């Protein structure tokens, strides 16, 4: 397990050295055309130190305690003030850490605002180099930083520099100890994207999965960003390895999905079963030499469509990404 520390001073150096990178960015960061004024934030206590926050974009996870506040995923940028208002109801301490489960805009939109509202503790030989009021650290897999800092497509705005992760890792995991518990960042390979992180709060016994697990929709392998259906299935099995249910396959370890209601292991098992069964069907079709259009025409997902697809476009997207990722698996 290795990590690379990007203090604010070092990020500034990178900015001076490569102004062209910042000028063009690499990702569609702007929110969809959505009216956020009427969207409320809702907070659900989960267990231990951990809360689930539901607003606009992906679910956020909030851990509070004597050390401060840790936030997993920051939704869309216009929701930042509402997020902060709800966080302040839970704790009067500052946000110390933000963790991004992956690079998509509905999970990183509030990075800049929430990071600036918080603050990292600076000491040791960095005390003189880094301002005492440095914003909260933003932790993510290094592929999240790579994608956020890639020049955007023509006409797309760049992601603000202050939203970038400050602290990245490139192995399979990173550990943090915060608010009296181990917080494990676990990187599944080529799942939803190539930069996913699941967050396991060991003492609170809660897992935040990001978009690896979204019980209201089909598993989404973002193949343009290194995702794959096989990687998603492996990641779901990893979640099942981590979680331990209480009596009668219910409760115990709670799971906060990227979108959707609060879950536990049994809900992940149901979702894993669906993903595996559909993966088996697609692999069988590919083995028989069926083209993507033939697979779509075969309607191999029609038993799960009414439960997981909001519309035909959602099914089409799922089948296309699944087929492509199984036919041409991503390489490390």
């Amino acid at each position: 397990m290795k990590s690379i520390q990007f203090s604010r001073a070092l990020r500034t150096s990178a900015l001076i050295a490569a102004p062209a990178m910042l000028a063009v960015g690499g990702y569609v960061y702007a929110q969809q055309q959505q009216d956020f004024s009427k969207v409320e934030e809702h907070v659900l206590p989960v267990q231990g130190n951990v809360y689930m926050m539901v607003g606009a974009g992906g679910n956020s996870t909030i851990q509070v305690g004597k050390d401060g506040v840790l936030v997993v995923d920051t939704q869309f940028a216009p929701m930042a003030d509402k997020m902060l208002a709800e966080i302040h109801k839970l704790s009067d301490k500052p946000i110390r850490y933000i963790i991004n489960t992956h690079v998509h805009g509905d999970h990183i939109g509030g990075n800049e605002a929430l990071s600036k509202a918080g603050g990292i503790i600076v000491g040791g030989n960095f005390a003189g180099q880094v301002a005492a009021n440095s914003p909260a650290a933003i932790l993510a897999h290094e592929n999240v930083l790579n994608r956020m800092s890639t020049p955007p497509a023509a006409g797309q705005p760049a992601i603000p520099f202050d939203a970038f992760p400050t602290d990245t890792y490139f192995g399979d995991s990173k550990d943090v100890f915060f608010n009296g518990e181990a917080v494990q960042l676990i990187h599944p390979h080529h799942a939803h994207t190539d930069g996913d992180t699941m967050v396991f709060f060991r003492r609170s016994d809660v897992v935040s999965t990001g978009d690896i697990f979204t019980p209201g929709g089909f598993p989404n392998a973002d193949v343009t960003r290194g995702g794959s259906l096989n990687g998603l299935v492996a990641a779901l099995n990893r979640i099942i390895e981590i979680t331990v249910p209480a009596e009668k396959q219910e409760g115990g370890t709670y799971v906060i999905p990227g979108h959707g209601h609060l879950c536990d292991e049994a809900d992940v098992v149901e979702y894993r079963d669906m993903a595996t069964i559909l993966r088996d069907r697609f692999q069988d079709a590919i083995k028989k030499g069926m083209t993507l259009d033939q697979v779509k025409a075969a309607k191999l997902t029609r038993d799960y469509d009414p439960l997981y697809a909001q519309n035909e476009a959602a099914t089409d997207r799922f089948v296309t990404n699944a087929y492509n990722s199984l036919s041409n698996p991503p390489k490390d």
Partner: protein
Amino acid sequence: MKRAIGGSLLMVLGLAAVPLSAQIDLAGEWANRFHEDFPERVPGPDIGDYLGIPLTAAARMRADSWDASLLTLPEHQCKPHPSDYGMRGPANTRIWKEVDTATQQTIAWHTHISWQAPERTIWMDGRPHPPEYAAHTWQGFSTGKMEGNMLTITTDHLKNGWIRRNGIPRSEKATVVEHMIRNGNYLTWMVIVTDPVYLTEPFVRTTDFVLDPQQVIAPYPCEAVVEVERPLGVVPNHLPGTNKFLTEFSTKYKLPYEATRGGAETMYPEYRVKVAAELKKENTAASK
């Protein structure tokens, strides 16, 4: 004299607090009776038996791909029946109520069922159902109200479950209305499942119980173990079109295969007339 008047006043006030219609008491130890739907409830339903279920085409495909070996996976072994199915299986049941000491109003009814020992709360105090982002459970979230001698229950926030134990699914988007009706020492428990995903219309079942004051329900601990050694991540299932067991039920009971595929039409008595006519036609053709 003053004390006597005071005592009388208190008695009058006490009498005024008694509800005008006395509510039936459902509490007790209830032993289930299997005279309804015995074959599917005890030995279990045949693979491919979808008769009498108003299932959608999606549900039919889910059931066709279901492999019973799924239940050998450790993560499936200790699942209880969801609350809309629990009374159908081995379901010696205890029902008791929770009463507010000060007001003597019923706060909740509780049930405990023998198989896998699920316990359930039916809130009677008017509290709202949780928001959609709250967790779903096997027993769901239930509220109830007494309607004469009948307890009517409304349940949502159920986990994905099943309509029949041969793979016919019931989705987590379903809502369930139940009526518990007591007649002397007999209890009829009616369950109406409305599932916008896997049912084309509400599905109604009744299950009967008899009061058994000597019933003792045993504990039901469950520990998951590896029953079948498999590579990690294998989920038993049948690929589309490969389940060769689907015709066994129709062959065994000499029914037209199409009838066993279920659908709302197969729930109604008129369907028997149609099937009889089809069988007669087949038999006539076969004898020629």
